[in-house]
């Protein structure tokens, strides 16, 4: 009788999980569709007077200037926006999962500030206003440096979530202060450049940047997915996860390193787009639940949708001006996030 009961319960749970899985897959497909639709819209709108038909035709045939604009300017921008959103959304989800903290994001861990400091160094000392690769390289160096510092301190003090978060917050303040100090030394032209970098921009997105950024963002993806189940176990606490065979500190350290690489791939080329890494995983959690097997791809897709929508709005809503993407992401992300937060009846975290 008891065995029968257990079997029925087990079957029920399996069915429930199957239904949940099915629901999540459908939702993921829906978000993929949304992202595709926005991508097509983004390819059809812009500052030039090319018609929507010409923009779509430009994808398949050579129709002169339209083709050049769509292939050389709009398409790289769309791909870059999606990549950045995917990178920030995924890394945010990973940080929140391994640190078991809803406030964890690439920016609360100081990675954004350190990239910013690298960019400021490049602008003030290495001609970053003209040589954009100097900015990319220095921002990348500093994101890695801050990640190594977090990992180093964690290794020394034990890789607990608290150690990592506190180290990250300390680094965030340190690098922010260092950036402010260098701004203090900068000329007015340099200070202008720094301010604009911190706003974030996709104007410089080209295929070369996409390849470099894409490698940094997409290469760690399989490893992150590989850890998704471990992340699920870690939500119950380090000890429980350890008892179930998860190498907690190892997974945590490697995940932080991978997520940092994804973050730097996202922000080194475009500047600080801070909000996505925090909010995309929360939105995903509200819609998909806490199973990291779905939460991580969902955060990636939602991040992509948010960045792409923000960039498309930012470059079209006030033509011919471009509203910096860092501002627009907050404009559209915060109300959406608050709406979901208020509408959500049960606790989601």
């Amino acid at each position, binding site marked *: 009788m008891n065995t029968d009961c257990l079997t029925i319960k087990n079957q029920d749970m399996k069915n429930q999980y199957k239904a949940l899985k099915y629901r999540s897959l459908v939702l993921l497909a829906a978000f993929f569709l949304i992202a595709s639709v926005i991508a097509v819209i983004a390819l059809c709108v812009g500052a030039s007077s090319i018609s929507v038909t010409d923009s779509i035709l430009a994808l398949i045939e050579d129709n002169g200037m339209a083709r050049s*604009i769509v292939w050389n300017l709009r398409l790289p921008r769309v791909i870059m926006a999606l990549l950045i959103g995917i990178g920030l959304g995924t890394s945010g989800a990973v940080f929140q999962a391994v640190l078991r903290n809803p406030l964890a994001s690439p920016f609360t861990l100081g990675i954004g500030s350190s990239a910013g400091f690298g960019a400021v160094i490049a602008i003030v000392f290495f001609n970053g206003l003209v040589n954009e690769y100097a900015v990319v390289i220095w921002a990348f160096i500093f994101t890695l440096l801050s990640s190594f510092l977090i990992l180093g301190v964690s290794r020394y003090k034990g890789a607990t979530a608290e150690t990592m978060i506190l180290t990250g917050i300390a680094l965030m303040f340190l690098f922010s202060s260092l950036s402010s100090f260098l701004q203090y030394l900068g000329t007015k032209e340099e200070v202008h450049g720094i301010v604009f970098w911190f706003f974030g921009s996709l*104007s410089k997105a080209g295929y070369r940047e996409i390849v470099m950024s894409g490698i940094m963002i997409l290469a760690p993806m399989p490893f992150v997915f590989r850890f998704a189940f471990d992340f699920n176990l870690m939500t119950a606490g380090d000890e429980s996860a350890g008892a179930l065979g998860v190498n907690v500190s190892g997974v945590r350290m490697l995940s932080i390193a991978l997520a940092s690489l994804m973050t730097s791939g996202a922000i080194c080329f475009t500047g600080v787009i801070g909000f996505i890494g925090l909010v995309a995983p929360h939105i995903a959690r509200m819609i998909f639940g806490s199973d990291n097997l779905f939460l991580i791809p969902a955060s990636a897709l939602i991040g992509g949708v948010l960045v792409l929508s923000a960039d498309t709005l930012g470059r079209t809503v006030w033509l*011919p*001006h*471009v509203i910096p993407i860092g501002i627009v992401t907050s404009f559209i992300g915060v109300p959406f996030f608050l709406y979901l937060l208020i509408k959500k009846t049960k606790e989601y975290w």
Partner: protein
Amino acid sequence: MLRLLLSSKEFYPVRFFLASFLLSGLIILNVSAPGTAWAGDVTQAIVIEDAFGRKISVNMPVQGIVVLNSDVLEVLRSLRAQDLVKGVYSEIDKDGVFFQEFLDRPRVGSWKNANAELIADLNPSIVIAYENNPGTELEKQLSPFGIQVLRLNFYKLGTIAKEIRILSKIIGREQQGEIFAAWYGKKLDAIQKRFDYIKEKPLVYVESYSAFHTAGPGSGGHDMCVYAGGKNLADEFKVPYSEITSEWVISKQPDVIFKTIAWGNGFERKDRVFFNNVRNELAARPSWNLIPAVKKGRVHVLDSGIWTGPRAVIGVAHMAKCIYPQMFDGLDPEQIHKEYLEFFQKIPYQGVYISENLSGGAK
């Protein structure tokens, strides 16, 4: 005796007199001490209007100036007022060769965030700063010391001659100021008058220091473009420095493109390699081969030294010559620059300031 004086009621008037005497002495000592609001011989005051449009009564004679940016320092040198400069902005070392004679002056902090204590220590009569930087807290911090903050920009072409006259009046170098302002006006007029009969001006895209950031009305770059006879693509913008898309530039089909860079110092530059690299990178941007300016090789890179500052007139001359090569065939911007550096600045002419050799010289 002293105890008697202090204790007896009969000596109250004497004690009162002594106390008053001591107090007066202390006040006099305090007033004459350096660094106070009352220091210096205030013989007269003149009222001027600064960049904020504020009427300011400046006490004359001005005995010392703290300078918070390179533009005003350059104008002071043109007015032969180097001796009045008591302190300078900290970033001066970046222009060390150009401003060599000022490198021994004390630094007082950044152009946008000066240190009030250091300025007070130097006890200048006035501090000259940009209109918006540092913030007005500087006035609040320095007013107890009797130090006035004067806001003069020297980077807007429309007001630069007026500001030269104001500054020269304050420092008692009116004659030099008049010569300099007149020279400035004459050079600009010589370019301007040729546009009287131009009906359709070429379209110009002006790119500021950061990529894809253009200069609209309210910015020095826009003024320069207009003074040089160009029609700025961004002439209807409401924002002085705005980010735009590459697509917009291509769709507008500009005839000429100007890009300014602020790396190194044109005064120390020996060749055009750096400018040419920047120009080539600009021309190689995706789909920019569709722009007439790129097709015809009319992309020009200018040094920040001749961009929106006291030397903007030289930048305008370069730009005018780039926009209308035939009309300004006889105009030699380098000659104007040489005249400026050697006659007003009293330093030898040197450096490279633009990607093309417009004067036909050796460089």
